[in-house]
Every structure is written in structure tokens, then in C-alpha cells.
């Protein structure tokens, strides 16, 4: 059986013939993910957001004296609200250092994928749609390969194949701040993964309704704003930068940690306004604090797109939050350190994606640089 990743061979041969290649130890080295990648994503996605939150995005207008509302769990048996769950995953590998003239740059490979799973009336999950791509990440231009090599690379990319050759020097929200070119390549892969996630939302377009919602893992602003109805973004880990101001006086400023530390179990905060009302967001505590190690454990951030900039009705935010609290059962405890704020079907969407990735053995088998001096 041929190696399913052999599609990459012509590109590697081409690079090997035109560049000096210093291969990575052991053919490929998997890049480790940052332990707080979700939080970093949240910071990067919302870097344009005003860190000072000054207004509610909820109607009726909440009182500033009590910003918490009870949201007891609403089990699926009572109302099956969330039926679709979307998450992506990626793995990046350092393949080699390429040298062309005086330019030195990393050559990276990434597997990116995303899946939407759907949950039936009995709670059983099945994959509604999924996608998988292998990215060969090579910089182009002043910090990468020459124009002529890039042109040749573009020609060896088979149309419609799982392989995409990507210039990771093109700016994007995840790679712009990165100094290390390997981090930049990783950022590019992450950006492409989020694009894939955004694309997969379409698979649920005709299926979502006010009784059938989609949960996206993370923010609802993946590069651009997502404006599709009946979906929320749920972030397990989020930026601690926002400062909350209620009232005119500066002394009323509260930071997110203080607010969440006081958030009772099965309660939500009021919905806050972001991006001038295009997004409403609030926090929900899914687990009792007494059972967890830190006050911020067991809290998720919920984002709801409001393309019309209208405040979210309190009842809707309550409903979504209640259904979300019920999602705590079952948890991936022992499988994921973020179990206390993970939603199991999202975890399964991630697993469905990861299980489709090519194994390390397949990857190793496909990466063959031409031997120096070979014709």
C-alpha cells in the first residue's frame, strides 16, 4: 500500500534540489503546543477589542448591584438545545532548515483538521462533517525561498489534494506578533485551522434553528466576525485583560478575576458588550468552586454574535447558559487537563479530528530528502 502522504514527496524533492537542507533530528520534530494556547488565541483574536468593558449587552438593562443570574442546569431530556459541536485541531512538525543563498528559514509541516459532530435525541454523537489538510509551510521572499523556487513549488502542488503549500510569511492574526519563524509557521497553521472551522459552520447552516444550536470551541471572531445565527462560541480559557467599569466612577472598576471569583455555581454574569455591540459575551460557572482548585476553574466564556448590535435578551442568555451547565456531564476528566471547562461533545469533535491525522510513522515514511549529490 503506498504511503498516503507520498503526495508531499515531489515538493520535498524540489526543495532538496534547490536549497541546502539541514534535516531535523529524526526526520521530523513535533512542535509542542503552548500550555495556554486557548488563552493565547483568545488574546490574539480579541487584540483589537477594547479592554475596557463599559456596557452591558443585555436586555432588560441589568442592575450594576448584582451582575449574576442563576442558571440551573437544563438537561437534554428537558430541552435539547445544543445539537452541533465544532472544533479543530492541529499538529505541526519542524522538518528542516532550508538555506538558499544567505537566507535561512524553517520548513514546517502541519496537519490541520476540524469536525462538526451532531448529537441525536439519545445523546449519541456522530460526525456531521469534517475536513483535513496537510500544510507544507515554507516562507517566501526576503525571509524565505526565492520567487523561482516558489513558482516551481506551486506547480508540484496537486490540485484538490490533501496537501497545501503555504507561505507562512503572509501576515495573519496569529502569526503577526511572532518573532521566531517557527512560531510564525505555527501561527499560520492555527490561522488556517480556524478558517477551516469557519468554513465547516456552513455544514450546519440549514440545520440550525432556535431549537438547534451550534457550539464552536473558542471565539466567534475567527479573523472575521461570524455572523451566522444560532451559534455560540465557548472558550475554555480566556484573556484576563478585560477591565469592567460599571458606573461613571473609576473606583467601580473590576477585573475579570474578581468578577469570576464571586460567580456562584450554575450562575452566569450579565452579558457584556464587545466590538461595539457586535458580540455579546458572558461567563458561566459550570462546577462548584469547592470541588476545584482555583476560583477560575470551571468557568467558561460564552460569546454570542450580535450582527445587528442588539442586546441579547436575558432569557436567551439564561437559556443558553442553563443548557451549557448541563453539558458538564460527562467530562473528559483524566483525558484533558481542561476537563472542568470542557464540553464533552467538543472534546469528541477534537478527538474525531485527531483520530484522522496521519500517524507519526506515516509522516516519517513520507519525509525523504534527496541525498546530497544525488542526480
Amino acid at each position: 500500500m503506498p504511503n498516503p502522504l507520498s503526495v508531499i514527496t515531489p515538493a520535498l524533492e524540489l526543495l532538496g534540489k534547490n536549497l541546502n537542507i539541514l534535516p531535523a533530528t529524526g526526520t521530523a520534530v513535533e512542535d509542542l503546543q503552548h500550555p495556554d494556547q486557548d488563552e493565547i488565541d483568545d488574546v490574539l483574536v480579541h487584540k483589537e477589542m477594547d479592554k475596557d468593558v463599559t456596557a452591558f449587552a443585555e436586555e432588560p438593562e441589568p442592575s450594576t448591584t448584582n451582575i449574576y443570574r442563576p442558571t440551573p442546569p437544563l438537561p437534554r431530556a428537558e430541552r435539547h438545545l445544543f445539537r452541533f459541536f465544532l472544533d479543530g485541531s492541529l499538529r505541526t512538525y519542524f522538518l528542516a532548515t532550508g538555506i538558499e543563498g544567505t537566507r535561512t528559514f524553517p520548513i514546517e509541516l502541519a496537519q490541520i483538521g476540524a469536525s462538526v459532530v451532531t448529537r441525536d435525541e439519545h445523546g449519541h454523537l456522530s460526525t456531521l462533517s469534517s475536513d483535513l489538510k496537510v500544510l507544507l509551510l515554507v516562507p517566501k521572499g526576503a525571509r524565505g525561498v526565492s520567487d523561482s523556487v516558489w513558482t516551481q513549488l506551486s506547480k508540484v502542488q496537486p490540485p484538490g489534494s490533501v496537501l497545501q503549500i503555504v507561505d507562512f510569511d503572509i501576515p495573519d492574526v496569529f502569526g503577526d506578533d511572532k518573532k521566531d519563524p517557527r512560531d510564525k509557521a505555527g501561527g499560520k497553521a492555527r490561522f488556517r485551522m480556524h478558517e477551516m472551522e469557519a468554513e465547516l459552520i456552513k455544514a450546519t447552516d440549514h440545520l440550525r434553528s432556535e431549537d438547534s444550536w451550534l457550539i464552536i470551541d473558542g471565539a466567534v471572531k475567527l479573523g472575521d466576525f461570524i455572523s451566522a445565527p444560532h451559534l455560540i462560541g465557548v472558550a475554555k480559557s480566556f484573556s484576563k485583560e478585560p477591565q469592567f467599569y460599571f458606573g461613571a466612577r473609576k473606583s467601580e472598576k473590576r477585573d475579570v478575576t474578581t468578577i469570576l471569583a464571586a460567580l456562584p455555581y450554575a450562575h452566569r454574569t450579565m452579558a457584556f458588550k464587545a466590538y461595539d455591540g457586535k458580540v455579546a459575551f458572558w461567563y458561566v460557572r459550570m462546577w462548584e468552586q469547592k470541588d476545584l482548585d482555583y476560583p477560575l476553574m470551571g468557568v467558561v466564556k460564552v460569546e454570542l454574535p450580535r450582527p445587528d448590535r442588539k442586546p441579547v435578551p436575558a432569557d436567551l442568555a439564561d437559556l443558553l447558559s442553563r443548557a451549557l451547565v448541563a453539558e458538564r456531564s460527562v467530562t473528559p476528566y483524566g483525558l484533558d487537563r481542561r476537563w472542568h471547562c470542557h464540553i464533552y461533545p467538543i472534546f469528541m469533535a477534537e478527538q474525531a479530528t485527531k483520530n484522522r491525522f496521519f500517524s507519526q510513522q506515516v509522516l516519517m515514511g513520507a519525509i525523504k530528502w534527496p541525498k546530497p549529490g544525488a542526480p
Partner: protein
Amino acid sequence: MVNESIQAPTQVTLEKNGAQTPGKAAEAPVGRSSATERDPSTSDKFNFWLSPEVIVNPFDIVQVGQVAPDNKASKTYGLVTTLEHRTDAPNHLANFISSNFGSLAEEPNTPRQGTTIAKVNVLSNNANVYMPVPNERVVTFADANGIEEALGIDQMELKNRVPAGLISMSNGASAVAYIDRRYVLGPESAHINISGISGLATKTSYAMFIIQSILQKADDPTKIAVIIMNVKQADLLHIDERGPDLPPEEKEKWEKLGLEPKPFEPGKVHYFLPRSKDGIQPNSFFPPSIYTTYAYDLEATADKLDLLFSDVSDPSGTMESIIGDIMIGLQGGQADFKAVRSWMTLLYGPPLFDPTAKKTVRLGDHLGSSVGKFRRHLRRLVHTRQTGIFVESRAINEKVLSAEIGKIKGGHVYVVDIAKLADAEQTLVFGDLLKTVYALKAEAPEEGEEEVPDKIIFFVDELNKYAPSGAKTSPISEQVLDIAERGRSLGVILVSAQQFMSAVHSRVTGNAATKVLGRSGSAEVLQPDYKFLDDDLKLNVTRLNKGELLLSHAIYRQPVKVVFPKPAYRQQQA
């Protein structure tokens, strides 16, 4: 983009009742083979995950596609040994925490991902390919033809097929488990041994069923004679009488097996019942209307005195020596024993006893004390503790059992009742029968004597009494071992039963080409005698229901679970 299912949505319609519809059940997939890094497929084993809604049980026979030479396809058959449900919870704590830290009221919003894994022992491949089953092959229930291929029944000639039970599978399909006559009656191998807890294992019923099956499917039943020992109640004292009408499901089982639900042929069953103390009625529960009474006088017992003393402790061999001398004296008509005509004269007259001095005397080299021990035991056995079979002289209607069995005829069944006899008496009768049958088959018939049947099937329950495990042997155990090891070549077939296989001499059970296990205790199945069973299957033996048996046959690669019909003859209980 692709669309696929995390859980295969295949629904399988189960055929709940009725016989196998050829090809129908085989088309319904039940799951796919699964080979992992830690749990690979091998030439002997593979695993498969079950589609939700599918029911599979241990002992179901499944089939899976496999390669074959010349790019052809073949089928690998396997026996499900155990099933386990696995989830992605790495430990029980994960489940506890998922239920909101142990809240019993918490219902899972999303059931945890899990699947049932069936573990399978490979039975066979129809192209003799024993490559490991690859990953993700569709697994289906084997159909009736598949079961035959799986067990090697298809290789048996039709005339050699003996129905030994029905294999019933979880999809409602069933098939006949045939055993090979050549491995039951010889010449390849022989003997059947049945084990299991009393009352639950239905050992006697199965033995009678298999004997009927052998007789009904025999080319020429007149060449087979059967001797049956009735060891409890009146279980086997009315086997030629029709019992109450069988329920339809039992009739159906007979029909599926291709057998006729009928009692043993009237007129061809002979009952031998022991004499009672008063000599008027036989010493039996619910005697049949026609029977023969048997009794033992000294003359008829002289050549088997050793059997009578089987349970007497004799570490130094003194008793064995004395008994040997006395047997020679009695049989050889030595001068000293001329006056010995009965048990009384043996016990209270010369040469063992001096009636004048009223004391035991020396016998040859044997001390008086040793002779005294012999007398004490003999007195206990034939006088004080006897049930009535030992007589000073036999009445006309009280027959010598060995003489009667000596007239054995093919196509006839001989039931010898020993249910009410004392243990030593039972041993004597059983040994007497074995010795007689062995002699009949070992010695060529003299001119004018009736031909001895080709095969003599000998059924005995509670075999552990006669051939217990351990190195120590006795005259009776040696007799049993002789039959177990050489009976095949002589045409003497032992169908034996006992509660615990481990309590029987391993050379007897080891020589049985067909082993049948009913419900047994967990401590019992962990004994070395059950090494032929996979560990997973051992646990299943402890869960067998009444009437369910595990059948291990010489040509099967794995034992199979069978059921069999209730007997059509009258089962009389006290």
C-alpha cells in the same frame, strides 16, 4: 470534506426464533474487527467492536473476510469467548466526577463514548489461511453452513455424523453440532466424559441423549450394545416407556437434530435389579414391570473378591496378598478351600477360622492378625452392612450378573440398577460388569457362542468413585484405566460422568476424545484438568444454565455451547 459516523448506525434485525435462514443472518454485520497496538490480532485470536443495538454472547460463532491464495477471498471463523465494554473514561474517578462528583441525580447530557468489544478465538479458516484478521473487517454471525465449516463438520462424512446438540446463537440462528463417530466409537479415538454440578449439568440426560443419537444414526444398530448403570432413584429404570408428551419446543429440538423423540426400543431393554434383603422384591426404586434380579453368592464372587475390597485401606499390600491367595484357593479348588461353599463357610470355617478354637488362624505365610482383618472387612461387606445382594445360595430367579451380561446382544440395552447398593457393592457390580465386558471383547468367542457386538457402550455416573484422581490405584481403577486406554481398540466405549472432572483420574478423562461440561464451580474450573479451556471460557462454564453444555470434541478447535432435547422416555423419580 467527509461525512461519517462516530458510532456505526447499523441496525441489525435479530431473528428471535426459528431455524437458521441460510445466508440471511450471515449478511447482517455485527461489528468490525479491531487490532490495536496493545491488543493485536493474532493467528489464534482477534477482537471486534459491536455495532450499537447488536447482541452478541459468549459462544456465538462469527465469521470475517480474510485473504486467500491467488487473490481469492476466504472466511475466518471464530468463537466469541468474552465481551467487555470500554469507554474513554481513563478511570472510575472520571465517571464519578462526571456525575457532578457523585451526584446520583445527575444524568449524562452526552453518554460517554464507549463500545463493547468481543474477544474471539479463531476456530478455522476455510482456505487454511491463518494470517491475523486485519483491522476493520466486517464481522457477521456465521450461518449454519459457516458453523459447519468453522467446526470442521463439513469435513465429516455424512455417515459419521452424530448429532451431539444444537448450537443456538444470539441472532436466533441455530445449527447442529455433529461429532464424528470415528472419534466416539473408534477407531480414531473414543469415550465421552461429562462433568458438572448435580441437578444443573443434566449429565445423565445428556448421556442418554447421546447414546440414543448414536443408536439412531448408526448404520447398523444391531452391532452396538449398551450397558447403563442406574445410580440414582429410578431415573433409568423406565427408558423403554414413553414419558409425558414433550412440549413443542422440545420436539422441535429433536426435529432439528434429525432424531426421533422416542424411548429406547421396548423389548430390547433389559433391567437388572439387585436382590433385596428379603429376596421378594428387588432393592430398587420403582422397579420396571419386567426385570431380572441379580445376586452374588460366593461362587459368583470368587474371581472378583479384590473388587469388593477396593475401598479398604491397604498401604502395605497385605490385604491384596491375602485376597489373591484366597481367590486362587477358591477358584483353583485347593484342598484347604474344598469345604468353602458360601460366605458363611468362608468366614466361620477353615482355612481362615478354627471353629473349635473359635479363632482366626494363619493362612500360609499370612499372620492370623492379617487374616483376621480380612475376615472383619468381609463380614462387614457381605453380612452386617450388605443390602441384600450377597446370598449364601441363589434362588432360581436370582441371576449371576456376569453370566447374564455374557449373553449380551447387539441392538439391546442393559440397565443395571445399583442405586440402593452400598458403595462397596456398587464398586463390585461396576467392576464385575467391566471385567465381563472386557473379557468378552478381549477373548474370541468360542464355537457356538453368540457373536459379541462390535461396540459395547458402557455408561456410568459418579466415575470418581471408581477411578479417583491421584497416583494410588485399586483393582477397580485399574479396570477403568484399562478400558479408557485400550477400550477403543476393543470396541468398549466408556460414556462416563461425574460432578468434578478433577476428582477423576486424569488418564481416564484425558483419553476421552469428547468432553462435555455442564455448570461447574469457579474453584473447579481453575483445576489443571480444565487447561484445555481458554481462561475466558472457564468463567462462562460457571454461568451455564440448566441444559446448556460445553462440548469439546477431538476435531473441534474450540469447545462450543450446545443445548439438547429432553428425553422422550419416562423419567421416574422417587
